[in-house]
């Protein structure tokens, strides 16, 4: 019988006006992989911040018992000294420093302040071997991919003699392959006796590696399930507090005339001018139709969409865009918006929102003329618009004056969507509309998409989640290496068919 390594009892954490955690209990046994799941904003990250001392002892109620001692961590240093290491979703690496420098940052092998680089690099090599990363310790972080950066973070944790490793959505930005490798690594650590807490949205991953799952909803512990009882349905039911019989809303597509046609669209890479990123794409979208674009990472889907949207990506763009049969000029974002094209970015924090401004100002940003006269903004009209869209897209916030930076991922996504809905487009391009948001919010986004289609909008959905594409679209284009390599009705499509199209396309391209 394994012993309990960590016990968090009755943790309550209050922020001004909000009770983020209320009597949360979490008990982790030595050597297990313990998954923590919950909707965005449920309080998972807050709980981990309490544990690691980001919120110092005294700012919360409840007790933390680690290896039998009651702990009062005053900061990350205290918890790291006890072997508790947290790897945050946003990686904390310095891009222009090398792997070795990053791993031993603040913890360098040094004598009288003079760094012993040989010792650092030797140790780094050993650590990299442990996490299965074949890179020179001198390589700069900026030159390796996100997946490898994640491994560097883990190596860094190992260098701190980690006993309890906390991973906050480690696979959120990783490709399928990198995710698998990471999960294998966790299993390997488990064999070595390292305990892990895994925060994740991806239920299939949890199924694969977790020994136990604790579900948190609205700042409370709902239940902890042992391995035998873990099932996707059970977890989803607990997470959202209701059962989701259908993960996708049903809809009756009413498909009309062709709205958008793209002909022979080609784009070259913005820096490597010789590299053609998009190679003569033809697509069309009809009124009331939801069209999916499937493909692997790097297939060029985002590049295609952004180049279409006011040449926001790439150089030497050629090809034709027709709206309702007439060629239109989409050479700037302003013109594209004017012609009724909207693009909802895959990266809402970097490209979608002004995080230091409130919901109201974000919603009207793409259509300020819509709330102003002679360039003077009508405050009341703007407020009415914001409240209207807040209700329509079900944004959960205390008011439209809440900063978007303080919203959960799902609510942020709804704000970005609202912004583009208010611009009243005919064609809406949604790039990974449900990335990094929880099951409940995903359903809401799908419902909005279905409603927009029924209102006669032409919708393009780019997604890496194939079940999602199969669930919500009418027709799917498959993209690979900058080309369209397949087109199929969603009713005929399957994950296998899509994969087959990609593989065949690869044969063609080479």
């Amino acid at each position, binding site marked *: 019988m394994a012993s309990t390594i960590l016990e968090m009892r009755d943790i309550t954490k209050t922020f001004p006006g909000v009770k983020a955690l*209320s009597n949360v209990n979490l008990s982790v046994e030595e050597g297990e992989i313990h998954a923590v799941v919950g909707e965005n904003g449920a309080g998972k990250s807050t709980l981990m911040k309490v544990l690691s001392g980001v919120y110092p002892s005294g700012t919360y109620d409840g007790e933390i018992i680690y290896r039998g001692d009651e702990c009062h961590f005053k900061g990350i240093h205290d918890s790291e000294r006890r072997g508790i290491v947290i790897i945050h979703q946003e990686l904390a690496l310095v891009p222009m420093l090398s792997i070795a420098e990053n791993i031993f940052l603040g913890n360098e092998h040094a004598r009288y302040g003079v760094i012993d680089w040989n010792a650092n690099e030797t140790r780094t090599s050993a650590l990299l071997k442990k996490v299965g990363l074949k890179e020179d310790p001198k390589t700069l972080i900026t030159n390796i991919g996100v997946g490898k950066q994640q491994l560097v973070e883990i190596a860094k944790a190992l260098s701190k003699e980690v006993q309890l490793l906390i991973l906050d959505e480690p696979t959120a930005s990783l490709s399928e392959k990198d995710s698998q490798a990471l999960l294998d690594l966790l299993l390997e650590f488990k064999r070595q006796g390292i305990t892990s807490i895994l925060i994740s949205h991806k239920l299939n991953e949890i199924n694969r590696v977790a020994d136990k799952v604790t579900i948190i909803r609205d*700042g409370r512990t709902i239940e902890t399930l042992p391995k035998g009882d873990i099932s996707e349905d059970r977890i989803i039911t607990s997470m959202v507090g209701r059962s989701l019989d259908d993960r996708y809303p049903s809809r009756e597509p009413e498909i009309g005339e062709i709205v958008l046609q793209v002909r022979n669209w080609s784009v070259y890479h913005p820096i490597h001018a010789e590299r053609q990123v998009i190679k003569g794409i033809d697509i069309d979208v009809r009124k009331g139709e939801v069209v999916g674009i499937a493909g692997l990472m790097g297939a060029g889907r985002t590049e295609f969409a952004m180049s279409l949207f006011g040449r926001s990506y790439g150089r030497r763009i050629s090809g034709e865009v027709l709206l309702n049969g007439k060629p239109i000029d989409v050479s700037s974002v302003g013109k594209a918006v004017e012609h009724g094209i909207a693009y909802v970015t895959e990266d809402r924090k970097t490209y979608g929102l002004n995080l230091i*401004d409130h919901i109201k*100002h974000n919603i009207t940003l793409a259509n300020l003329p819509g709330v102003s006269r002679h360039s003077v903004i009508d405050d009341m009209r703007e407020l009415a618009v914001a409240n209207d869209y807040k209700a329509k897209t079900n944004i959960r916030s205390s008011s439209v004056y809440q900063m978007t930076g303080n919203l959960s991922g799902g609510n942020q996504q709804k704000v970005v969507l609202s912004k583009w809905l208010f611009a009243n487009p005919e064609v809406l391009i949604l790039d990974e509309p449900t990335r990094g948001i929880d099951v409940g919010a995903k359903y809401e986004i799908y419902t909005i998409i279905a409603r927009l289609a029924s209102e006669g909008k032409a919708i393009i959905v780019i997604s890496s989640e194939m079940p999602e594409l199969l669930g919500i679209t009418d027709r799917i284009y498959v993209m690979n290496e900058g080309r369209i390599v397949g087109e199929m009705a969603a009713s005929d499509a399957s994950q296998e068919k899509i994969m087959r199209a990609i593989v065949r396309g690869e044969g063609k391209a080479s």
Partner: protein
Amino acid sequence: MSTESAPVPKSGVAEDVQQGPRVAVSALVTNLREYGLILALIAIMVFFQYTTSGTLFKPVNLSNLVQQNSFIIVMALGMLLVIVSGHIDLSVGSVAGFIGALAAMMMVIWPLGPFSNPLVVSIICLIIGGAIGAGQGYWIAYHRIPSFIVTLAGMLIFRGICQALLGGGSSVGPLPAGFKALSSGFIPDVIGSLTLIPPVVNAAGKTIVGSGLTLHMTTIVIGLVAVLAYAYFGLRARRSRERHGYQAEPFTLFVVKTLVTSALALFLVYQFATYRGLPIVLVVMGVLIALFVFVTKRMTVGRRIYAMGGNAKAAQLSGIKTERLTLMVFINMGVLSALGGLIIAARLGQAVPAAGLGSELDVIAAVFIGGASAMGGVGQVIGAVVGGFIMGVMNNGMSIMGVNVDWQQVVKGLVLLGAVVFDVYNKNKA
């Protein structure tokens, strides 16, 4: 993030209809920054009024104060937009010096005939200021060269040209009286003055300066109209919110705020009226402040500048032409720097090589004291104006007290640091 402790209203409609002291206090706390700054200004004024034994609020000194500091505030209006859009402009002091020198050369030295008329010269100078802003903004906006570097270069270049124009270390003057009126003139009393207490006439038949009490009625009327307009528009905005069913700030707080601001304004207007009326430069400044408040709060271009400073990429992908907007912000800054230069030259009555030297730092400090964020996207016009006045009152008050110029800098530095620390502390607490 909803929890049971905070019931979430269905839409933003009237959350706290009840108006009690509790609500007033909480509204006061949330607006601490805004009110705190004005309270700080008042506290500083009262402090110096006391330590200078009443000299600070003497009508003569108030006029001096305005004339000495107006160019800082005028330039701070432009600097606010520059800083909100995520940039900085270090060249404003040099540009002001250069424009002052140019104006003096055009009016006094160069034989330009009708083009040496002060009004014509001023207009030409403002246009040249705009062109300088465009030149710097072009590199910043379209070639993405950091504004710090471009304007540092501008700071060196225009100070150099300024000195070269004036032929080394000499000064050029005197400037025509019509031009000097921009800084040292007062608005004409079109209504006529009202004598409350006739001045004392001494035995020699001469009036004793400073005796008696005569009011500059045009000033009083302008002051009253401005205060009434302020109260009226405040009330109207309030009504409009209520009519649409949205909460406004608690009525008591609104009344207190309006009364305090109005009382302060009327007191100052009265003081000016007992002297020679409103300084022309104060009127110019007031109109500009009102214009910039309106542009930043109500106009789409203002909103776009804030969005660009908050997240330039998101703004661009929302259809905002960020390059052009950046260029416009710097053109605006150039025009206001030129105006600042004209005001300095008009006050000194001549152009000197050191005009505006180091003033870029006062301008930037005013904006930061006013609560703008160095990261961009945050900052208010009123904040920058109050920040400018805080700097000005401290300069003036410490000078009257006889504090050494060296120590004045130390105090100003500490106030800047203190204001920003207070800001950061407040933000983290929330």
